[in-house]
C-alpha cells in the first residue's frame, strides 16, 4: 500500500511517501499503525480519539473517505492513501 503525505503532514513523517507492508484491513488500523511509527504528534494530527481529526483530508485512490466508510473504509494492498491537512486556495 502506498501512503502519501502533503503540506505540514510531511514535517511529521519526514517523508513524502512510503510503502506500508504491514496488515491494515481498514483506515483506522492503518492510521494507528502509522501513528505508532511516526509518533504521537502525527497520531494527534490524524486522529481525535476514535475518529478522524476534523482538520485533515484523506483520500483512498482519489476518493475522500467521507464518501466511503470514513475511518472504517476498507483497504487493499494496492491502494493509494493520500493524507492532507485542510488546505485551500483559489
Amino acid at each position, binding site marked *: 500500500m502506498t501512503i502519501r503525505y*502533503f*503540506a505540514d503532514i510531511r514535517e511529521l513523517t519526514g517523508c513524502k511517501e512510503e510503502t506500508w507492508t504491514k496488515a491494515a484491513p481498514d483506515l483506522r488500523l492503518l492510521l494507528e499503525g502509522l501513528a505508532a511509527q511516526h509518533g504521537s504528534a502525527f497520531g494527534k494530527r490524524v486522529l481525535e480519539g476514535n475518529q478522524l481529526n476534523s482538520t485533515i483530508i484523506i483520500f483512498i*485512490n482519489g476518493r*475522500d473517505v467521507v464518501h466511503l466508510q470514513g475511518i472504517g473504509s476498507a483497504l487493499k494492498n494496492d491502494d493509494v492513501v493520500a493524507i492532507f*491537512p485542510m488546505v485551500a*486556495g483559489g
Partner: protein
Amino acid sequence: MNGYTGTILRVNLTTGAISRQATDMKDAALYIGARGLADKIYIDEVDPKVDPLSPDNTMVFAPGPFTGTFAPSGGRYHVVTKGPLTDCIAGANSGGSWGPELHYAGYDALIIEGKASEPVYLWIKDDVVEIRKASHLWGKWVPETTDLVRGETDVDAKVACIGPAGEKQVLFAAIMNEMHRAAGRGGVGAVMGSKNLKAIAVSGTKAISVARPKEFKEAVLAGRKGIKEHPVGGAGLRAYGTDVLVNILNQIGSLPVNNFQDGYFPAADKVGGETLAANQLVRPKGCFSCVISCGRVSKVKDPKYAGEGEGPEYEAAWSMGPDCGIDNLDAVVHSNHLCNEMGMDPISFGSTLACAMELFEAGLITLKDTDGVDLSFGNVDAMVEMTRKTGLREGLGNKLALGSYRLANSYGHPELSMTVKKQEMPAYDPRGVQGIGLEYATCNRGGCHVKGYTIAVEVLGCGAKLDPHATADKPYWVKLFQDLTAAIDASGGCIFGTFGMGGDNYSAMLSALTGVTYSTEDYLKAGERIWNLEKLFNIGAGLTAKDDELPERLTKLLPIKSGPSKGEISHVPEMLPEYYKLRGWDVNGVPTKERLQELQLV
C-alpha cells in the same frame, strides 16, 4: 454616509474634464459598493454593444465600504468594464492598498471615460486631481513605471498601472497595483491601454466614518478570530499559499494536463506549494488588513531564471506548469514574475499557450510560425520565451495575445480552446469536480472559479463535504456561492475570509459600518441582485444560453484518461436547467420579470 465618502469622481480623458457627483445612497444600499456599485454605474451609462477597446467604453474603479477599514482583508477594489477578451461584463478584483487609498482620498468610485490623445497618468491627492503626461512612461514595465510615478508624485502614493501588455492591448492584460497585485482577468488592462491611460496614482488622508463603532469593532474582531482559528485561514494559506492545491487536485485526478487532455500529472509535486515553500519562498505577504497572508514573495536562484517577485498562485503554477506539461517550478515562478512585470493574466496566458502547444503537436502551428521554437508540451524554454513574446506581441506572441479562442479559431479548430465566453478556464478539471464546471459555464465574466468557489465544499470540506463526482444539489451550491461572493466583492472584502467567516459575519460588519441593517438574507439578496444585473448586461451584449456551455471536449468528447478520475466527464448540460430554475430564469437563461421585480431590478 457611514462606510461611504458620498462622492464619485469622473474623469473624461478625451476632454480633460474632471468632475464630481454625489454617490446615490439608494443604489449604495441596494448594490453595497465596489463590484455592485461599479456594475450599477457602468451598466446605467454604457451601451452593452460597445466596442470594449473604443473610447465609448468606460471603466469604473470602486472600493467597497469595508475597503480601508480594519474589517478582515478589507482592502479590495473592483474594476468594471466590458472585457475585450470576452465581449461581456468584465469585473476584476484586486487587493493590496490601492483600494483603501482611493477610499481615503474621498471617493466611492472613479469613472474613466473617453481616450487621451497621448499617454497620460492620473494623480489623485485627495481633492486635487491632475491628468499628467506619460509619454516618458510608455513602454516601461510595471516595476519601473510604479517607481517613476511614485517619484513624480509622492513616495507613499499607491500606484495602479499597466505594463507593455496593456499598452499593446493583449486581450488578457491586467492592471497591476503596487507592482504585484493584479486586477487580472478579462483584459481590463487592455481597456486602460486603449485609453492611453498608463497609471493611476492615489494618495488620501480622509477617514471612513463608522455608524456604530463599538458594534463594528466587535463584529470585526469576531470575524478576525474566526479566520485565525480556522485551519485554513489561520495557518494553512500562510504556510503554503494557494499553490498547495496542486497536489490535492492531482490526488483526486482533477488537475488539468496538456490543455485539458488529461486530469492527472505524475510530476505535480514538483510545482506544488510544498516545493515552492522549500525552494523559492522568501516570505508570506498579506494585503491591507489581512489576517491570512496567502501572498508569496518568491525568488529564483537558478541563474537562467534568476529574479525576485511575487507568486505564483495555484492557478498560475498550473496554467504555465501542468497544463503545458511543465514541471520546472523555477521556470514557472520566473514566467509568473514576467507576467506581473508586463501586466498580463497568467491563467489566460498559460492556457492559451497550452492550446498553441496542442495545435503545434497536431501540425497546425509550424516551426515557421514559431520562428523555430519547438512548442511541444513540456518545453520549458519555449514557455518562458512565449511569455515574453506574448506580453510584447512579438512573433507568434502576437497571436497568443488574442487568447486561445481567437487563436484556435484562426487555425480552424475552435474546439481546442478551453474557454467559456472566450475566457480561459482555471485549474480545476470540471470532469472530476462537477459543481465548479457549472460555475465556469454560468459565470458572468466567463470561465472563472473565484466567483463561485464550490471547490470549498466539493474538495476541501470547508462548510460541507460534497461528493465532487455527484451532480445532486450542485446548482443550489453554485448559486449560493455566486451570490455570497458577489456580496463580499461588493463589500470590499476578500473571499478567503469565508475560510472562517460566514454570511452572518459579513452582514453584521456591513450593518454596523453603514448603519443600514442587512440580515444574512438581505446580504445574499444583494449578491443575487448584482449577479442578475451583470446577466442583463450580458444579454444586452448579445450573449445567449449557448454561451453557458463548456467545451465539448469536457462534456462529450474526452473523458479523463488516467488517474483517480479516469473515465469522468462533465455533466453541466444536465445541471444547467436546474440552475436556471433556481435563479428564476427561463429555459433560455433569461431572468423572468417576476424575479427582476423581486430583486428591484425593474
